[in-house]
């Protein structure tokens, strides 16, 4: 009889495709700003993400989408609600998660290879993975650049290394916070293509935050549109465009136009509502 109350505890993962990997339930985050005012960054967000899904979050500046990513990464605590990764409540950074930061965030005093290997050098014992590191570098076109320092690389190459580093521990989940925001349009498209390929090859679950509507639709299985602060989910749009996608094809696809129009409409309504 005492065992009765376990029924709603999520079980350990059974790799069924429609399992939920990231469960976000009524999640809220309030923090106190420097001026002492309470800021409601997120308000009762609910979202389930399946293993292997590619989810993009778009929203106006300061809508709390980066906050959402920080909560998922275990970098900040949440105020209310539930947040489960693989059935376990998030209580801090997890080895199941790799984070790709804005503008690469490489350490300038280390070579590219050492930067990519960093996750295996810190935070406890790790199985040796020299082969995987070399493969990651090769796959992202950094094979010959392992001994270079970050300042010797272009912004696009630096962010490739940032992605390699996030993949070093072979995590199930990749969280990406506007990873290509600082890059020029052409490099950005190139890296979008490459990210799609990496994702298709090893089917990580990816949550990517972006400002760019075209980037979101190009990459995502689902585009989540968020409102201005306090961040709420306005829409959860399925992207039915077949893969592999290319930028030339996708702009001609009728669903692309429809989705872009819908997302743009939602975001514009936000801007006007808040001016």
């Amino acid at each position, binding site marked *: 009889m005492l065992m009765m109350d376990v029924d709603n505890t999520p079980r350990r993962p059974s790799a069924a495709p429609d399992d939920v990997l990231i469960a976000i339930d009524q999640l809220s985050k309030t923090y106190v700003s420097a001026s002492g005012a309470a800021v409601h960054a997120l308000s009762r967000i609910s979202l389930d993400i399946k293993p292997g899904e590619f989810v993009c979050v778009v929203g106006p500046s300061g809508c709390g989408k980066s906050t959402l990513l920080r909560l998922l990464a275990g970098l900040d605590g949440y105020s209310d609600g539930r947040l489960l990764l693989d059935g376990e409540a998030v209580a801090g*950074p997890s080895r199941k998660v790799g984070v790709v930061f804005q503008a690469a*965030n490489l*350490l*300038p005093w280390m070579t590219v290879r050492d930067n990519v290997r960093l996750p295996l050098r810190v935070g406890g014992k790790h199985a040796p993975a020299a082969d995987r590191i070399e493969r990651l570098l090769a796959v992202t*076109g950094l094979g010959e650049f392992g001994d270079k*320092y970050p300042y010797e690389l272009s912004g696009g190459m630096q962010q490739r290394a940032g992605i390699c580093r996030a993949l070093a521990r072979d995590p199930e989940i990749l969280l990406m916070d506007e990873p290509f925001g600082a890059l020029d349009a052409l490099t950005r498209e190139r890296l979008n293509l490459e990210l799609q390929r990496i994702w298709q090859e090893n089917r990580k679950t990816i949550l990517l935050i972006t400002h760019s509507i075209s980037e979101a639709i190009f990459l995502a299985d689902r585009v989540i549109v968020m409102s201005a602060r306090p961040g709420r989910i306005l829409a959860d749009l399925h992207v039915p465009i077949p893969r592999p996608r290319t930028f030339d094809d996708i702009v001609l696809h009728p669903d692309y136009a429809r989705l872009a129009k819908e997302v743009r409409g939602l975001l514009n309504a936000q801007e006007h509502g808040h001016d």
Partner: protein
Amino acid sequence: MTDLANIAAPAMTPKPTKPSRRLGLGSPIAWIGLAVLILSWIAAVKLLNIPSYILPKPEAVVRALWSGLAVSPASPLGYYLPLWSTLSNAAVGCAIGVGLGLVIGSLMAEVEAIERLVMPYAFALQSLPKVAIAPLIVIWFGFGDGSKIAISALLSFFPVLINSFTGLRAVEPERLDLMRSLSASRLETYRIVKLPNAAPFIFAGLDMAVVYALLGAIVAEFLGAQRGMGVVITQAQAVSDVAGVFAALIILGVLGIVLHGIVRWCEAKVVHWGANRKK
């Protein structure tokens, strides 16, 4: 993949840093300044008829320099023995001061309780002219090498303390987020991120520390010593040998420039990413 590698190629030409430039002696204008200074010195002595116990003739200073340098290194009349004595005391004191400054600065940056405990006194002591403590230190440590080392250590301690503390706290929050996202331990974060990040600050402190250590050793020698460059100066002063004082000062000036150059050279080797640093 290769096409992407090619696109990035132009951005990778290494940009060498030139430490000699940073010394300020690479530019011809610096040497012109020196020539003007020496010429106006000669002119002042010749034309204004300034007595030699106020401003010696340049040739008298050169003669004094020569008599101190052109002797056997073991000669009690040369500069080598006093220079070695001053330099070794300053070096030991500097090592102690820099070591303590780095350790206490690190503890202050890492542990808030230690920061609160030490910071008010560190700043109070920092604003005290520390040379004024020197007579007290001579009472405690005597007229031997101990007091020279202690004053050198005291003077070189503060710049390293303040700079290492500031540098360790000046880490970009994104880099700390990275280490936290990897569940890195505090020691790992210190060693891998905070310390390299603070290296340019620490070297700036070290640059001051070596000069202060030299200053400390000489001040201690002024207060009483059997040997050292401070003794050379006070002995020359006692017999109104102004040319001898000038010569000793030139030796110390050159020594200061050399020490500064060594620190800069080490910095360029260690902080190799510094000149090309990008956010």
